[in-house]
């Protein structure tokens, strides 16, 4: 077999190191890090925690703003109009939620994202309105 030039041999050596690294056992890597902590990795881990927290806060804010906007649109339509969009069986199931919806004040808004039932109602109503408009 033809011998490669020295530059390609070096390139292949780095390639071999990459291939070995790619297949390295996770436990072995972790044991090595425990024995010799790497500050660069610790710094990046900190950054990962910061980005994760920031993205989570940002997404919560976005979901909250979207829910508030949906409530405003629905309230403008009026409860009676909304009730007409759903059939009697659905109405029966959703009546307790309607009461919640009718009584909703701006002070309650902060708790909206915690209220999965109310979010579910908003989703149903939004879909009904969308279907109605098509």
């Amino acid at each position, binding site marked *: 077999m033809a011998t490669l*030039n020295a*530059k390609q041999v070096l390139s292949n050596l780095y390639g*071999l190191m*990459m291939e070995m*690294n790619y297949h390295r056992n996770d436990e072995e890597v972790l044991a090595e890090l425990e024995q010799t902590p790497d500050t*660069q*990795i610790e710094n990046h*881990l900190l950054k990962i925690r910061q980005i994760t927290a920031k993205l989570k806060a940002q997404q919560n804010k976005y979901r909250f703003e979207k829910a508030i906007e949906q409530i405003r649109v629905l309230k403008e339509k009026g409860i009676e109009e909304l009730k007409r969009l759903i059939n009697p069986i659905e109405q029966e199931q959703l009546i307790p939620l309607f009461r919640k919806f009718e009584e909703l004040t701006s002070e309650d808004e902060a708790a909206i994202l915690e209220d999965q039932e109310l979010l579910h109602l908003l989703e149903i109503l939004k879909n009904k309105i969308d279907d109605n408009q098509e």
Partner: protein
Amino acid sequence: MIMEVGKYYNANQRKIAALNDADWKVALAKCKAHIKWRLKQRTLSGAHSASNLGSEPVDHYLGIAYEKILDGKWEWKDEYTLSQQMIRVANSYISKEVEKATSAKVEALQIIYKDVEEEFYDLAAPPGDDSEVKEFETRILAIETAVAGDEELEFMIEGLKEGKKRADIAELLGIGVRQFDKLREKIMRRIQNQKSSSK
């Protein structure tokens, strides 16, 4: 500053929620090692001097590798572990930098997606002039001197000279790939020791 999220944000977050610090540390360590070797390989062809990036290159690409997964701009595919996915992101961005560095000299490169596992042994451009040939030969000679006396490592270098890869060399040595992988640390230590003693 608001961080924009990509279309894979929710799907990626479901996987990320199951991770712990140890998972992240392993992925960071493996991705970091990959970036270092890939940059060394790329530097052979003149791309990627430390100065052509805004920050320290390893930090730069390591940051990109997890940011793209966290913000959902890159899909964390089911078939890959976190480290394998991060390596793919980093590798792709390193290739893009090389493309930018080389496009001034050569015609626009056709972009063909190659998976990282096919790219480990990228063909290096042949050495330019005699001084470059001499420089690479000196470096190989230094590595050969470092491994001299260790049959397995000598065999490894001979295999690389013949264009053999991990599985081929392990087979020729009559050992499994996992056992062969243990030579990684040995060759790095030998080369490191030789560098220290020659200073």
